[in-house]
């Protein structure tokens, strides 16, 4: 075990995948000589040459469409779209082609590409650099959508994504890039499609993914002082979603709060809350509650702490889980 960062783990995963499979090519904006604006592709061009890791014109639809064509020729492209909100020009390519090509052709063609997106906020970024865009992708059948919250998972999920026969949108929480953790790489922790209980507990389940996982863990730690023993489930694979792990946890604890950094309305957290109440209704002692970002465009840096789910906001929400068996006062009269 050695201390390393998620950024370094992702870099190692790319390098190891390129070593193992010569069909793997890495491209995007500034990923070559510069090594990516977050240095995730650092050293890959020097090590593997400028045919396997290269810069492209500054055009995101072009990058993704080019990857589609390269995949049709038998390669395994891994592309970087530099920031979450800069990925939007590629959305038509992703929604109409990447996600659908296998289905349109009854499996004759597939698009085994990985679309890496430095994602979400918490880094004081100016506008268009901090969007939580996971719901757009999760709502698009044909895509797999994963987001790691730990160094081990970052390596393992990226390797799994590159190996996957289907396209994977790989969301990398920017605020977790440079936090250090003990990890032994190469690690294979997580097949895509599995959630994990990050912290066992008995009183309530906090379900989170990506940048919200550390918030959930910190909230669970703080909750001990309030006398609550909280379980934390890290979803990590948004699509396919691991109903079994989430459902089993909530049936054990009987209470559930879903935490996401993205704005709440029509978000992934809403889907998770709906799935939990459908499956766990008879085990629930309280409605499933959500903690999310506010339903606003991502705020300017000096206001982002108000927007982002905080430990306090999570604990305030946990407090509303009808511990005294009384209805939630908030919902008795409100619309």
């Amino acid at each position, binding site marked *: 075990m050695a201390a390393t960062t998620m950024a370094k783990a992702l870099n190692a995963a790319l390098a190891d995948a390129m070593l193992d499979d010569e069909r793997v090519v890495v491209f995007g904006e500034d990923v070559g000589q510069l090594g990516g604006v977050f240095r995730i592709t650092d050293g890959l061009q020097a090590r593997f040459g400028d045919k396997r890791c290269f810069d492209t014109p500054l055009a995101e*639809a072009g990058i993704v469409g080019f990857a589609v064509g390269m*995949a049709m020729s038998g390669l395994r492209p891994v592309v970087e779209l530099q920031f979450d909100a800069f990925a939007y020009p590629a959305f038509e390519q992703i929604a109409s082609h990447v996600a659908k090509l296998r289905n349109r*052709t*009854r499996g004759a063609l597939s698009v085994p590409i990985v679309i890496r997106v430095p994602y979400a906020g918490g880094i004081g970024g100016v506008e268009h650099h901090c969007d939580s865009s996971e719901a757009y992708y999760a709502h698009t059948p044909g895509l797999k959508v994963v987001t790691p919250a730990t160094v081990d998972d970052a390596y393992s999920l990226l390797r799994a994504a590159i190996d996957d026969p289907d396209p994977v949108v790989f969301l990398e929480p920017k605020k977790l890039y440079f936090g250090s953790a003990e990890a032994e790489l190469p690690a294979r922790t997580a097949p895509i499609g599995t959630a994990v209980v990050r912290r066992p507990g008995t009183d309530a389940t906090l379900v989170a993914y990506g940048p919200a996982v550390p918030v959930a863990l910190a909230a669970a730690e703080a909750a001990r002082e309030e006398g609550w023993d909280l379980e934390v489930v890290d979803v990590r694979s948004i699509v396919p979603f691991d109903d*079994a792990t989430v459902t089993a946890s909530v049936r054990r604890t009987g209470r559930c709060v879903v935490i996401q950094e993205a704005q709440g309305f029509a978000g992934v957290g809403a889907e998770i809350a709906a799935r939990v109440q459908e499956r766990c209704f008879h085990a629930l002692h309280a409605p499933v509650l959500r903690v999310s970002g506010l339903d606003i465009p991502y705020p300017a840096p000096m206001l982002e702490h108000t927007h982002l789910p905080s430990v306090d906001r999570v604990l305030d929400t946990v407090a509303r889980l009808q511990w005294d068996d009384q209805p939630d006062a908030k919902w008795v009269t409100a619309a």
Partner: protein
Amino acid sequence: MTTTPQAVRRASPRTRRKATPAVPDPSAGLLPQPEPVRLLDPDGTPLPPRDDYPEPPVETLREMYRRMVVGRRFDVQATALTKQGRLAVYPSARGQEACQIGGVLALRDTDWVFPTYRESMALTARGLDPVEVLTLLRGDWHCGYDPAATHTAPQCTPLATQCVHAAGLAYGESYQGRDTVALTFIGDGATSEGDFHEGINFAAVFKAPVVFLVQNNKYAISVPLSRQTAAPSLAYKGVGYGVPSEQVDGNDPVAVLAVLDRAVAHARAGKGPYLIEAHTYRMEPHTNADDQTRYRDADEVEAWRDRDPIARLEAYLRARGVLDDAAVAAVAEEAEEYAAALRRRMDSQPTVDPLSLFDHVYAEPTPQLLEQRELVRAELAAERDAEGDA
């Protein structure tokens, strides 16, 4: 011999003038010719031969004629099938036969075609099963043929999005040491889409062997060319990307094939992409569901009948003595048989298994899809039971 300083001073300006080369035109070799390349007059009379665009072999032209006649008959039949309710919709390519057939005849079987929804004729001319080509329009699936086996991408409906795929595929093929060329069909309207520009730019930057064949048929549904561009010709869009470009009379089959031959050879030689604008005309409405009387005069359409590409090639080949009444009749008969076989095969509705909806969303269905599959299976079983009881 001694040189006086005066002599030096006199010589110097002359030398400088001589040594200053004319500024090279950076667009040389990129700009199209000012007028579309034409090798036949509209009545089929040959124009003087040209060195830059040698005429294709006569056997190839006879084959082109054959496929154009069969292709038009296919197109007429497909339109008729919409009236019989066998096809949900059909976008006709009538009048564009030279481009449709030329675009596939210029390629090898190992080359890739990236078609739009208007290229059904081109695909059948490429030898694809017409029923499989019409699957999209019949509505039993999206793409009915096997793109990998036929080297033909699914017919693309989101305009110009296939241009970047063609660039990526062509680059991927050359990356892996294969000399495949990719040809993408695109219309005049789609040159306004961003993906056309990103596709041609990526192809140019990576020297990908792609031929962009723009069929300028003058209308994007109802919107005329003047609302797509202020450029002197769509072929002028290549120069901005460093891509050699040409414009051609798209109803002159000999010129279309000659220009395509040059473009394909350029791409296959590793020199990068090529842009062709073929000036043609869509003789039919956008689709059978369109009403063209709302945006163009019948006179305009009629005027284009005099520039029919099939009549033009037939007249030329007859005059050259390589096509006679018997050959024309044989091709016509083949076309009728092709249409009759298609009618027969399209006469019955295909059965489509609803459970197949879940088969290809992913390589393996997710647990959620398996759940939904089970739901649909139970619904179907209940329907069958109810029918059995009735």
